[in-house]
């Protein structure tokens, strides 16, 4: 599977336009991410990092500019249609999982099955989901019938990451995904995520706050400030 090529052309995002709360989140961003490339997006709070990923995923429509995935203009495409080929991991693990459902049910949701099928789902998780759970190294495979509300924030985030990677999508977007993990676990999870992304050939964009961790990954770094790209270390 080849990763997706992403191209942003003159992307601007304005929140609350025409009101006293008008905010320019992204200001004419031009960016190209090659198939299979892993980029690390850095920047302070309010620099527009999360908005950038949400624009790529179709969750936020840009006020100006165009988004191309594999050369196709997807600026006006619905988020759930784009999501068929994109996995998104949020900073908040509650957003990426169904808290009232069990771990087994969450993993089953990520399985490659049609939602409208009127047949009972098998009482076992798929191989990709099983591998994803094992890769967290937290022994989660023994807690399949437990609702996610019973897991800690860090465990839930590890599950959300596992869910995202078990789908084998062509583009993976990770929004400060190690924020709720401890230093040791975040390093291990970040490396495992990169290995997994390169293993399946996905393109990946990762937002990070931890500069040291970002540098240790040795990938292309993009620095954002006030909605502008101020530094791009270039392609690998």
């Amino acid at each position, binding site marked *: 599977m080849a990763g997706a090529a992403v191209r942003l052309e003159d992307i601007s995002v304005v929140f609350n336009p025409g009101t006293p709360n008008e905010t320019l989140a992204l200001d004419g961003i031009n960016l190209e991410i090659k198939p299979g490339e892993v980029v690390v997006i850095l920047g302070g709070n309010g620099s527009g990092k999360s908005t950038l990923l949400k624009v790529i995923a179709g969750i936020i429509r840009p006020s100006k500019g165009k988004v191309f995935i594999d050369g196709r203009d997807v600026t006006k495409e*619905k*988020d*759930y*249609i784009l*999501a*068929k*080929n994109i*996995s*998104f991991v949020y900073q908040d693990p*509650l*957003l*990426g*999982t*169904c*808290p*009232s*459902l*069990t771990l*087994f*049910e969450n993993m*089953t*949701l*990520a399985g490659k*099955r*049609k*939602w*409208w*099928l*009127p*047949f*009972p*789902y098998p*009482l*076992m998780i798929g191989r990709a989901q099983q591998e994803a759970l094992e890769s967290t190294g937290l022994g989660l495979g023994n807690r*399949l*019938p437990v*609702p996610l509300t019973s897991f800690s924030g860090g465990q839930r985030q590890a599950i959300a990451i596992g869910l995202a990677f078990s*789908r084998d999508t062509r583009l993976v977007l990770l929004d400060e995904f190690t924020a709720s993990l401890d230093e040791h676990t975040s390093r291990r999870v970040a490396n495992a995520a990169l290995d997994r992304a390169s293993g399946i050939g996905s393109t990946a964009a990762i937002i990070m706050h931890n500069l040291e961790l970002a540098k240790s990954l040795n990938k292309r770094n993009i620095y954002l400030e006030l909605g502008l790209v101020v530094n791009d270390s270039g392609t690998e």
Partner: protein
Amino acid sequence: MSWAVLSSAMQQGFLYALAIYGIAISFRMLNFPDITVDGSFTLGAAVYAVSLVNGRDPWLALLSAGLAGFVAGTGTVVLNRKLGISKLLSGILAMMILYSVNLRVMGQANISLLTTPSVLARLEALGINSPAYLLGLFVVPAAALFLLSYMAMTHLGLFMRATGDNEFMVRGLGVNTDWPVFFGLGLSNMLVAFCGALVAQSQGFADVNMGLGLIITGLAALIIGETVIEGLAVVRRRVVGRRGWNRWSLLPWDTFKQLGAALLGGLFYFLIIGICLRLGLAPTDLKLGTGALVIIGVALRFRRADVETYARARW
């Protein structure tokens, strides 16, 4: 407690279980506070009554009532999803619109069903209040319980529950969440409309105001049922203790419990009402009593959650 009170509670509990299942689907599975049911209950009764008066087959009339309910439910989804009206207001609007629709369908405020053929005719021949009649009536909620439990084990059921829990996540999996809600709310209102038709048949008339306050009745029954089920689960844990899990633990037990709570809750609710009436509560005060039941049920849960949070904070 006399057999008459028990029998009446069982009859009503079995009939209303369909509506309570519907309310459980919208409120608990889809997390959609749908008030359309007040209107779709009467719509079911209205369509059924008018079909019978016009000489239709009773089973076809019942099917038409269910379909009408399905359409009413999907109408609420259209208001919410396509026109951007909030969930609560969509339900209120649909309920209000349905009041006029029901009057249009019926052509008058009340239709008698005493001389028309009945879907319950064979059962009624066994003698109302007889154990055989009650057993026959029990088949209706039992079959619905079986089918809904089956649905909970399918991908469709799983995605409906997931959409109610975290719609954002489900969209992130590439699913258009409009469809699970569309189907779920349609199904919910279809069950309510079936219930309306059966209740109209059992009481011998359809009335344009018969759905008034159904949502409160349904929620009261659901809360009572959930409290009973939770109590039974606590007893089971104390008797059996905690055990390891196996494949069957992966079944959607929470949903099974909710559906069971709907059935049990209906029985207990009508039993409580029957006993209260026997003890001298005026029928005009029934809505007051039902409202009080909901308030007590919710307040008790709130108090318990409050105590648990406090205990956690201390320790």
